[in-house]
């Protein structure tokens, strides 16, 4: 272990020490995940900032292979692929985070509500509802909602929100079933707190950690859905740089200019792989498996 650099300020040192402690608790898989995701985040922030090239603008002759001037080459409209790939990274990651965060809130709330009720009929109907919603093939349900709401970013996000909350509700319900008779909940009831307050302030926070663990794997699915629908021309549409839309454009040049799909596809996959490694690593830590 190398000692912290002596030049850093006390406040900075404290956070560094903490960071190092977290780092030591991680296993190899989750460390790789963190490294990959950090790399993509740094590149997606810095590349569009530092490059003089506009992600939307013509810069040079179209369809150039990767070179020193254009590391990823240029696309069919003569735009710099490097800048476009990392501008796309910003949009894709932001959309995926938006896509995950709303269902986790809605689902956890509804699931906790369902888990704390003692009404038998409500439970029966509830089970059927969640089973039915999760019975639809995910992409087909998203496509169906997008068809109705509109084939654009807004429609895509609404479709993800409507179709993804049920799994969180399932997790929250299972957990809150175990919690509703816990002593701290009984204590809150004795204190005369309202049902809603007990639900939101006492039960939901305890349910949340499990939902967050699932959210990591859901993130992979959602970023793939965002890319997939944009690939079909039903989400983010050109000229906006987005990995799936770029794959759809580059697909036409598959035979002769394969780098047009290789770079966006590689970084989309790498993002998903990074999250997958992190998720799997954390899962194994929580299960107590080493190596």
């Amino acid at each position, binding site marked *: 272990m190398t000692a912290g650099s002596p030049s850093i300020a006390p406040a900075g040192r404290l956070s560094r020490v903490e960071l190092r402690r977290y780092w030591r608790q991680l296993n190899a898989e989750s460390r790789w995940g963190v490294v990959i995701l950090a790399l993509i985040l740094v590149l997606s922030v810095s590349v569009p900032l530092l490059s003089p090239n506009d992600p939307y603008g013509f810069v040079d002759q179209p369809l150039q292979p990767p070179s020193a001037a254009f590391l990823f080459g240029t696309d069919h409209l003569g735009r710099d692929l490097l800048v476009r790939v990392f501008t796309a990274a910003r949009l894709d990651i932001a959309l995926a985070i938006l896509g995950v965060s709303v269902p986790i809130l809605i689902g956890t709330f509804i699931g906790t509500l369902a888990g704390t009720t003692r009404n038998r009929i409500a*439970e029966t109907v509830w089970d059927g509802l969640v089973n039915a919603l999760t019975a*639809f*093939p995910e992409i087909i349900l998203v496509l169906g909602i997008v068809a109705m709401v509109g084939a654009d970013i807004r429609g895509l996000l609404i479709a993800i929100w409507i179709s993804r909350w049920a799994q969180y509700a399932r997790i929250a319900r299972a957990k809150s079933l175990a919690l509703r008779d816990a002593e701290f909940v009984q204590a809150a009831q004795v204190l005369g707190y309202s049902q809603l307050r007990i639900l939101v302030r006492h039960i939901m926070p305890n349910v949340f950690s499990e939902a967050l663990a699932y959210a990591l794997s859901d993130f992979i699915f959602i970023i793939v859905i965002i890319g*997939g629908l944009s*690939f079909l021309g039903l989400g983010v549409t050109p000229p906006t740089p987005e990995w*799936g839309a770029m794959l759809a454009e580059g697909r036409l040049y598959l035979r002769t200019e394969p780098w047009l799909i290789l770079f966006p596809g590689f970084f989309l996959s790498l993002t998903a792989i990074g999250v*997958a490694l992190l998720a799997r690593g954390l899962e194994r830590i929580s299960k107590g498996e080493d190596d």
Partner: protein
Amino acid sequence: MTSSPGGLAAKTLPLLRHPVLRRLAQAFFVAFLLMVFAFLLIRLIPGDPAMILLGDEATEEDVIAYRKLLGIDGSIPSQFGRYVSNLVRGDFGVSIRSREPVLSIVGKRLPVSLWLTVTTIVMTIALALPLGVAAALYRRTWFGHAFQIGASVLVATPVFFSGLLLILLFAVQVNLAPIAGYHAGFPANLYYLWLPALTINFVLVPVLARILQSSIVETSTEEFVEAAIIRGTQGWRFYWRYLLRPSLAPTIAALGYFAATVVSYAVIIEIIFNLPGLGMTLVDAVRNRDYPLVQGIVFLSGLLVVGLTFMADLVNGWLDPRAQIR
């Protein structure tokens, strides 16, 4: 504690104490709710669907005719009543574009999708079984570690990227598959289907092989395995009866669960490989705002998954009596 639709029903109807019947009743209940969802789907359209389709210059008669076509005339309860009674009679409405009944469009396009699904699942079993067993037996060797890493990478790679890579490799570099397209008729169609099926399996096989692997590892610590070893059971009988068969149940259950995923990915795969199946029909329908066609395909795909999950449950109960359907 654990309550299910069957749980409540079992108290009221003695017949439903039979696990298979109870599971069937549950499946019907879910199918009914699928119908409700599909009905509600068209209500997500912001504004008047007839006006969206016809534009602002539409005449009054046109709008009324379109509302009738979409089943959105009259009160909501009466709309729902008509929707359900039509579905029960097999009437899924008419495509707005072609004016062809939705069910006959689906009937024409379904065979391609079914062939794709069947080819995929046969391939899944052929690949996941040996891989999962090998990954369990050689867990502590380089193979086990390579399997873990490879599985993580493959699972996270989106099918529309791996599909393009496979086309690049097998259709452009080596001429082992067509770049796209389809011709009906077994076995000639396998030439067009093996690459799309392989693409879906890039996601499916790692997941299932992993489940099988951890399931075998878990089974191998059971007492009945030890007892079988002590009794001197050997060879195929040992591997199948004591190790593989009890471990298969979670894998089959997962295969049922992933039926939805297969059907999902098939949509994107059909577009990439230009297969004229249901997925391509759906995407076209979404692009054309063909609401009844979208609604019909969404409902039928949900129904298909409910049926497949039900079958997986039955196979599951046969393979491992401990996992009795609850």
